[in-house]
């Protein structure tokens, strides 16, 4: 194991996969010479050259569209969208083409491509650059959605996504890039798409989370332990395919569930998770499922009130206390 940042883990995954397979290429805005807005592509141009590491014009729809054509043409492109907010410009290619081509074309073509997109709020970047759009992609069949929380998962999931023959939206959290964690040294250590992980075992309540929310949930669990509340934290790791078994088993064990989503609450993925828990764990539930969500407002620019719009350790802990205080 080696300690490294989430950013370096992603960078390592890209380098390892590009060394392993010459058909892996990467392109996007400022990814080559500038090495990416968040420096995830650092050193790639120097090592792999401009044939495989390309700067593109500012054309998000075409960055995805070209990746689709290149994937059908035998490459394994890893496209970087500077932020997930710009994926909105590429939604036609993502939803109408990337997600559907394999199915509409009767499986004639594989579509081995990854669209990497940093996102999430909390960096004081204003309403248009602080969004959590994971539900948008999760809603659409035909797209895998990866949402790693730790450096080990970031590397393992990115490697698995690059090797997968289906398109993957790979959503990185901007506030996690500098976070550190242990990463296995084995270059074949992959994290499969569609497998959640119990990041902390507990017996009283299950917290279901993903991406940065997993980190906050773990911090909340550590706080709550001091109050005698034992939390189990399930990190979804991918939203599509969604591993329902792991959190259903956990909720059946604990009898209580809090689901945490960074996105807006209206039609957010937390509602989907809560409905699955209601359907599958109803007899075992000791309290209603609680959702912790982003507030339903465009993200404020002001740092002080921006914080209020995003779930925090304290709001997650408060939700857990609420669920625990139900009388039976």
């Amino acid at each position, binding site marked *: 194991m080696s300690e490294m940042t989430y950013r370096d883990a992603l960078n390592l995954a890209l380098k390892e996969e590009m060394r392993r397979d010459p058909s892996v*290429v990467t392109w996007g805005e400022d990814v080559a010479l500038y090495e990416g807005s968040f420096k995830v592509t650092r050193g790639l141009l120097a090592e792999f050259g401009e*044939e*495989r590491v*390309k700067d*593109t*014009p500012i*054309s998000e*729809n*075409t960055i*995805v*569209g*070209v*990746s*689709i*054509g*290149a*994937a*059908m*043409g*035998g*490459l394994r*492109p890893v496209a970087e969208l500077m932020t997930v907010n710009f994926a909105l410009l590429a939604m*036609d*290619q993502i939803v*109408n*083409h990337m997600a559907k081509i*394999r*199915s*509409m*074309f*009767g*499986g*004639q073509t594989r579509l081995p491509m990854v669209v990497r997109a940093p996102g999430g709020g909390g960096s004081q970047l204003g309403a248009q650059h602080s969004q959590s759009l994971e539900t948008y992609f999760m809603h659409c*069949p*035909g*797209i*895998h959605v990866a949402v790693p929380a730790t450096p080990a998962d970031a590397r393992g999931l990115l490697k698995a996504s690059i090797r*997968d*023959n*289906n398109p993957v939206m790979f959503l990185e959290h901007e506030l996690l890039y500098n976070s550190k964690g242990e990463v296995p040294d084995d270059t074949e250590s992959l994290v499969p798409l*569609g497998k959640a992980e119990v990041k902390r075992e507990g017996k009283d309540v299950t917290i279901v989370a993903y991406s940065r929310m997993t980190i906050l949930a773990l911090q909340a669990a550590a706080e709550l332990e001091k109050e005698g509340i034992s939390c189990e934290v399930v990190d979804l790791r991918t939203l599509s*395919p*969604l591993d*329902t*078994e792991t959190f259903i088993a956990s909720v059946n064990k604990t009898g209580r569930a809090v689901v945490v989503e960074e996105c807006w609450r209206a039609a957010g993925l937390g509602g989907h998770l809560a409905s699955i828990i209601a359907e599958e764990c109803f007899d075992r539930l000791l309290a209603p499922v609680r959702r912790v969500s982003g507030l339903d407002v465009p993200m404020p620019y002001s740092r002080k009130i921006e914080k209020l719009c995003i779930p925090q350790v304290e709001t997650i802990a408060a939700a857990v206390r609420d669920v625990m205080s139900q009388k039976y």
Partner: protein
Amino acid sequence: MPESILATFTVKRLEIIAPDGTADESLVPDLSGDELRRIYYLLLLTRAFDGRALALQREGRIGTYPSVLGQEAAQVGSAFAIHERDWVFPSFREMGAHLTLGYPLHQLYQYWGGDERGLRTPDGMNIFPICVSVGTHIPHAAGAALAAKLRGDRIAVIAYFGDGGTSKGDFHEGFNLAGVMGLPTVFICQNNQWAISVPLSAQTASRSLAQKAVAYGFDGIQVDGNDVLAVYRATREALEKARGGGGPTFIECLTYRMSDHTTSDDASRYRSPEETEQWRERDPILRYERFLAKRGLWNEDYAAEMKGKAGGEIDEAVRRYESVPPPAPGEMFDFVSGELSARQQRQREEASP
């Protein structure tokens, strides 16, 4: 400092056969008599395919269908220049290109009959499935060309689209990227002058569509889209340039949509019969027949024989199409993603009788 001229540009237009069938011999491509006659047969086959499709639609035997009437030369002429190893990204109104490239006719009817399995391209044929979304396959073609370039594969990638498609962001973005990266692409616009009810004048203020290529740093040419040899010549040159590393070319085939946009449309509501009548005089097949006759390659008997042959081929295609059983409900889950989720598995079981 005085103002200076930064750039001037010219846009070429190519015509080879005049409406009376006379040709500029210096421009007639070096095709054998058999090849010239093969082109004629493909034009007839396209028209026969199209006519039958309209009849089948009226009888409820296929769904909504976009006629290619009047655009046969633009489609057959361009596709006749394409090599087997080149890759083609068609839009939805290129059935003449499909059948020139040897795509099974019954599968085209099958697709327009509402069965996506008709889009399963036979092995060894590099034709991507029909793209109904306007212009969205232009970036895909650029991506496939980029893949070919990185693989060192000396092929060309062709994307077909219409005049309406040139207003899409995909057109701008795809053209720009192809120009910047010098990709081996040939963009073929069938400018039939109508995007449903919107005439070309409301689509662009450009004097031609071809000149749009200039701003992206590559060549654009307008050809008479009803002159099958002009289309063939321009396409062949562009393909050779692309395969040789010379970058993209944009070919505007100026033609006319003689029919409605689709069978769900009634063009008489927005354009005059006089305009359509004017274009009837410039019918691409009539012109080519006059050209062939002057070379001793065509007479009425030959035409009748070829029309009979095309009709027979169409009959057989319709028979084959109508003998294909409909897909089973469970098939809609095939290829949605690598592995079906438990929920999708359940949905699949519920959908299957």
